[in-house]
């Protein structure tokens, strides 16, 4: 856990990125605002958002959604069935990933295209915070003197090299592995 960049800063930068990318008014953005459903973001917008956040915090966001990682880690069909609907296993992962989210209720299951609408401003904030929290104890130069430059970039106070964080895809894979081993997913 790092204490150099707080959740408030991350949330504020995400709002700023949303305003710039989607050209929406800041007043329309709250923690529970769905980036897809409420703000109209599409897949290309997420890439733009991610790029802005990467530049802002010096991190690397996940290139692939957790459903894609599941399919790669546990085999094709493990997360999404042949009709594009989430498997019971993916549903369990989804609930773990977005515990606060109200999942759509359909008799025939949740379509994979409905999942991105669960990404709220708060969920994105949590994602960025989880990457920032992988800040290592010390710099490769041996010093343990991290500091936040401009409030958003963590650098070594001794050698001034930028901090290296675990990238978003690796973090998702680690999280899925832990979930799979720990809780006995269906």
């Amino acid at each position, binding site marked *: 856990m790092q204490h150099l960049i707080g959740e408030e800063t991350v949330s504020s930068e995400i709002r700023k990125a949303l305003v710039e990318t*989607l*050209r929406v008014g800041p007043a329309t953005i709250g923690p529970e605002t769905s980036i*897809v459903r409420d*703000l*109209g*973001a*599409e897949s*290309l*917008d997420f*890439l*733009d958002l*991610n*790029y802005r956040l*990467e530049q802002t915090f010096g991190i690397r966001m996940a*290139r*692939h959604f957790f459903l*894609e990682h599941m*399919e*790669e880690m546990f085999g*094709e069909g493990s997360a*999404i069935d042949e009709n*594009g609907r989430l498997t019971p296993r993916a549903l369990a992962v989804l609930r773990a990933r977005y515990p606060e989210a109200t999942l759509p209720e359909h008799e025939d299951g949740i379509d994979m295209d409905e999942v991105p609408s669960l990404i709220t401003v708060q969920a994105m904030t949590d994602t960025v915070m989880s990457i920032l929290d992988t800040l290592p104890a010390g710099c490769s130069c041996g010093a343990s003197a991290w500091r936040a430059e401009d409030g958003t970039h963590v650098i070594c106070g001794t050698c001034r090299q930028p901090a290296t964080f675990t990238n978003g895809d690796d973090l998702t894979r680690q999280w899925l592995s832990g979930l799979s081993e720990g809780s006995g997913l269906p």
Partner: protein
Amino acid sequence: MLFADKVAVVTGSSRGIGRTIALHLARAGADVVVNYRVRGGSSERQANELCAEIRALGRRSLAVQADISNRQAVRALVAEAGATLGRLDFLVLNAARAPFKPYERLLDRDLRQLVDTNFLGNVSCIREALPLLERSSGKVVFISSLGSRFATPSYPLGSMKAAMEAVVRDCAESLRDRGVAVNAVCGGIVQTDSFKILRQVWDGLDRLSPEVLVSPDEIAEVVVFLCSPAAAGICGQTIVVDRGLSNRVLR
């Protein structure tokens, strides 16, 4: 006006290269149908803004939602263009949709989507638009990319671009007697949304010299040329617009 009374459909034109092409065609006098894929999202908003911009130029314009991977939607797109604007002279095939992953990581449905949109979707557009294009001795311009001929990291779209360049050659021959010209523009590294994506999957892209980065305007200018009478002698060609990137072994 070069394209006075002409009508163009530009697929995938709410943003990026398609948007710039639509604007250039409108500035040259054409009325433009702006196509976008997702209803209710940011692209619909941008498509409507683009239409307003085109109308401010004194041209007619309408935004039509259609996912080109859906044959019925393509049929409706062409029908709406014909019914509202009365004719179709230029079909610019710009829409593309693909995951940015290497081939070995593509899922079956990724592959299906790749083919459905970028090959079958484009072929559907040509087939559905053909009756209107024949009537106006129209032009088809496909927007390709260097991925059609060079290995590009995490860019399976390249193989679809290659397939479509072949379709361009074939259709140019088969449709020539029906008065329809078919050509393509192959863009290098164009500074658009896709560039933002490539920057994320292609390490080192940020270190490329800015002199090799193509602007959307440079692509659009060549599309306008291919739609103009000046290009009457060009048939089945793919014109590379890459600021020389593919012309050198070392850079």
